[in-house]
């Protein structure tokens, strides 16, 4: 039997109805197991933690042989969520599988009305040059009172609670090595 998305939904719907009308004497659970198996059969399981709120629900992400995410669901072994997820957590795989994702570096020149796609190399070189220019122009060794402050007054940063701990630490180190003091993120708002 070829299972299309349409027939799959039919089976799932019938299964849900079957649960409600369990007393009618027919059992659809083999069909349910079969249908679930198809979707993630042979897939690689990777444990993750949901990226939305701060509950920290466990998620299992399924990916196919080519490394493409095909499904995500609540991790039943996780002690906080015990397999449950909310509407956002349940939609997680749609972050990975989404045509709207940014896939290339974009650049908008001064006074331009357009994006331009550029290479990483070009963009990082230009950003690094900008950092140096802004830093060199605004670096303050001593403040008005003559106290040593060694800071860059002309660059600010916001972000990010969306980073992993290790990235947050690395970013904090990066910014402070440049002398930046205007360092803020989501925790303040």
């Amino acid at each position, binding site marked *: 039997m070829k299972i299309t998305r349409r027939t799959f939904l039919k089976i799932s719907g019938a299964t849900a109805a079957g649960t409600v009308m369990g007393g009618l004497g027919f059992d659809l659970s083999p069909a349910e197991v079969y249908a679930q198996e198809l979707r993630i059969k042979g897939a690689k399981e*990777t444990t993750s933690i949901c990226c939305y709120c701060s509950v920290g629900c466990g998620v299992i992400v399924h990916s196919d042989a080519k490394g*493409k995410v095909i499904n995500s669901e609540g991790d039943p072994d996780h002690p906080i969520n015990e397999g449950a997820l909310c509407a956002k957590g349940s939609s997680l795989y749609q972050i990975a599988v989404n045509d709207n994702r940014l896939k290339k570096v974009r650049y908008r020149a001064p006074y331009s009305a357009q994006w331009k796609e550029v290479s990483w190399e070009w963009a990082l070189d230009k950003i690094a040059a900008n950092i140096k220019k802004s830093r060199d122009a605004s670096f303050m060794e001593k403040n008005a009172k003559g106290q040593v402050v060694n800071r860059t007054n002309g*660059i600010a*940063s916001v*972000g*990010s609670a969306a980073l992993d701990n290790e990235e947050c630490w690395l970013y*904090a180190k990066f910014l402070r*090595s440049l002398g930046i003091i205007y*360092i803020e993120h989501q925790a*303040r708002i």
Partner: protein
Amino acid sequence: MTNHYIDFRNADVILNMGGNVAENHPVSFKWIQAARNKGAIFIHVDPRFTRTSTKADIFVRLRSGTDIAFLGGMIKYILDNKLYDEFYVKNYTNASFIVNPKYNFDDGLFSGYDPTKRAYDASVWVLEKDEKGIPKRDMTLQDPRCVFQLLKKHYSRYTLEKVTEITGTPAADLEKVYKAYGSTGTPDKAGTELYAMGWTQHTVGVQNIRAMSIIQALLGNMGIAGGGINALRGESNVQGSTDQGLLYHIWPGYLPTPQAHLATLADYNKTTPASKDPRSVNWWKNRPKYLASFLRSISGEKATKENDFGYSWMPKLDQGQDASWLNLFDEMYKGTFTGFFAWGMNPACSGANAGKVRQALTKLDWMVNVNVFDSETACFWKGPGMDSKKIKTEVFVLPCAASMEKEGSISNSGRWMQWRYKASNPPGESKPDGDIMYELFKKVRTLYGKEKGAFPEPILNLKWDYETNGHFDIHKVAKEINGYFLEDISEHPVDKKAYKKGTLVPNFVFLLDDGRTSCGNWLYSASYTEAGNMAARRKKTDPTGLGLYPEWSWVWPLNRRIIYNRASVDLEGNPRNPKRPLLKWDAAGKKWIGDVPDNAVPPMGTHGVYPFIMKPDGVASIFGPGLKDGPFPEHYEPLECPIEKNLMSSQRINPVIKIFEGGLDTFKTCDPRYPFVCSTYRVTEHWQTGVLTRWLPWLIEAEPQMFCEMSLELAKLKGIKNGDRVLVETSRGKVEAVAIVTSRLKPFQIAGNTVHQIGIPWHYGWLHPKDGGDSANLLTPTIGDPNTMIPESKAFMANVTKLTKKPAQKG
């Protein structure tokens, strides 16, 4: 959080005030249900009836911005009816401490106020010490200058009648909540409080939480299973990002950012918290070890004892300088910055007074935005009202990997540090954030190596060696954060054992202030040791039966699941609540059994020490002298409010808040053009500005557009029907929305007047979807809590009117 999510199930009474747990932290609600299934009472206090309220045993309404009045009434009720835990109050709080006679409170002002500076001299609020420097106490709690009596006096004004007048909550409803929550003052009962931005986003945000902390201290609910003050934070790693020091005022591990007057490491270390009381652990006395180890993790071998471990290379704030969010965008608006990073953020929608934020972005020379999806920040130059031909800002948008496309850890609100693995490659040319910052810094360093530039030392000396086989390696950073020994140590002062150079430190107790250890963040030391990556653990043992799961992931500090847990035992170390023993002293084995003890010292009755080890006095602060707006929480009206006079005192608003004036910053209070109290909030299907949800087909289909909730009464008054298009307006901006006319909101009776409240979600933006509406933050004011500078997005004044014709299309 002092406790953690699963621990909700151990509570007898759960109060959700300042939040909407069922809709915003949905899965955690299962642990509230678990408690309810065992007979717990669940209370929800909110201006709006939400899905949380549907499950509440008690739901009561209050006007947004009046939580301190509500909680002040509860403090009075607990004291009047002697519901407090007397043993706990006497032994584990500063209730018995004597306050300096210069402390006073009169008509809304504490002593020491300077109206010209809009600031207090907090030095007059101190606790009295004896000749040995130990706090003076009256264990009978009768001295009129003791904290307990001053507390009584302060909240004697918060009568049921007065609280009702301010909050709009009927007295019978107040009493219902006070009685139910006050029932947790016995040792065999636990009460917990769950809050979110409903408490923080006010000009009295910190004092909202302080008021509840006082209640928890009075009822003996801190440091116990099923208790605590529990912030349900909004982002999956906002706990971790705070811990790692991504805020202007703190370095990783809450080490205060150095200020200019602290020229040397010795100057900095002179500010280390001190206590002369031998019964106070005062854990922060160890700060110099954490600081030296942190500086060595920054500059590695270049940080030597001779150069103060590179202390002078680190940027310093001017003394008292506030570089927080609202000031940052105020400075940007004034043209202070040429460069700006918005890394994993969308300030064009998330910043208060977003219209000002968007204008501020036009003043930059360049901006870097790193994101998974496109955003209103990246595209600000083509947004509503912008003329790209006139905007000079150069914009770089760097595409980054999503959470399942890289490896690393995040920390939830319960301080659980959990490891995530990589499931797939990021799409197209997008890269993990760590890789991007790693490569970018190398380019900056190369430039400073080649060309002359301002003060290159901190850049050239930075330790930046997190590669394996030529690729950035996140595990190397995780180990850097944990820390390691920099030299062979033949006999460590802590355990007399030998440690080899390069060995990961077992935990922060092993850190030294002499430069022989390196540690990126002392709080996370013990997370990645020679025994492995603790955050990746998945063993589900539960020896206490309390759901602590000590071998699942890892929790800071030291895998301690409930902090201040020695407050759960009596002076001999026996659990005060035998039903839910969190810790017990094993006298024969001379050790604690249960959770990782908050300091492994013997019980207080022997020669032990106070349980609140992070507080200088070792006890919970009912009198809290450390804040800018007073040692006791006091009710003030929001900056924009519907009544002319604060019914509690002559001070209408918090007397120390910084007022931003001029330009795009306007405020209107008691102005007939903006008559309704407005709050922003969230829906289950979206998250923050919507950058990670508006682009997902399921979620945008479920909640496709901006709406405005209003009561049946208000809708009738304004001639608005359910589903009508409306305009919501403040003196700062306008947004269009679809009207939801609902009995979930009801008008309040405030001091004899009818006050209407409306509500709007803040997940939308002009970029996508096209007809989804714009950000609620176009309406919110630039005003913050004086301690945290978190903006007051939960109580401001707005108008709502029916749109008769469809306005012109934007963008």
